[in-house]
């Protein structure tokens, strides 16, 4: 019987300890200290303090998405393979008799027309266009080498 009473008493004491601090004595100072504690907690959260990592843990996914989205804005160059180019230019010649694909404004031209048009991008190696100097720049280089 005495043991039971003792157990119940300790349980009540524990519950009493868990109760929030009473503001009956000097409520103004206690409320201000509570706000101060709250501000410190917000500061720790926003500065990524080790004691409160929840906020930055939640932002981790967002940072990853931001990084991916920014990386995806880099220019992507459509460089067609030789076969695609020849096929497309053949189609164009058959359908319109023109070397340039006017519908998509893609860089599509037959090898002959590129030479005729004095193009800077004449040939291709492993899917990459190789820049070649145009007629005027070739003349300029020739003049330089002769001098």
């Amino acid at each position: 019987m005495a043991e039971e009473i003792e157990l119940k008493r300790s349980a009540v004491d524990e519950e009493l300890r868990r109760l929030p601090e009473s503001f009956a004595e000097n409520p103004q100072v206690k409320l201000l200290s509570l706000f101060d504690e709250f501000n410190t907690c917000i500061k720790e959260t926003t500065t990524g303090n080790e004691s409160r990592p929840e906020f930055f843990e939640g932002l981790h996914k967002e940072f990853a998405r931001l990084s991916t989205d920014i990386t995806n804005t880099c220019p992507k160059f459509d460089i067609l393979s030789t076969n695609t180019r020849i096929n497309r230019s053949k189609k164009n010649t058959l359908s319109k008799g023109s070397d340039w694909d006017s519908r998509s404004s893609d860089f599509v031209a037959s090898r002959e027309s590129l030479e005729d048009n004095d193009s800077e991008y004449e040939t291709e190696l492993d899917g990459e266009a190789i820049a070649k100097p145009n007629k005027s720049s070739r003349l300029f280089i020739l003049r330089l080498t002769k001098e």
Partner: protein
Amino acid sequence: MTLQFVREILNRKAMGYLPGSVPPTVLEHFILLSVSKWQTICLRSFQAAERLLKDHVMELCGEFFGRFESSGLLPELKYLLTD
């Protein structure tokens, strides 16, 4: 982005420069082409971070001032945060 487009930009902006050299105006044009897309992305990310922070502060409000619900302090704080 096609090579034709790149060539058009070069022809338009590289006037008066030596052949083969890429003037800074062309580089700037292509850099700005990418960077102009960043504003929307950054704003979206900022809004997501703001939402997350507000949710977190709301939780902290409940944790710190939950006992003041009947006195009206907690609803006032929540109102300030949602405003």
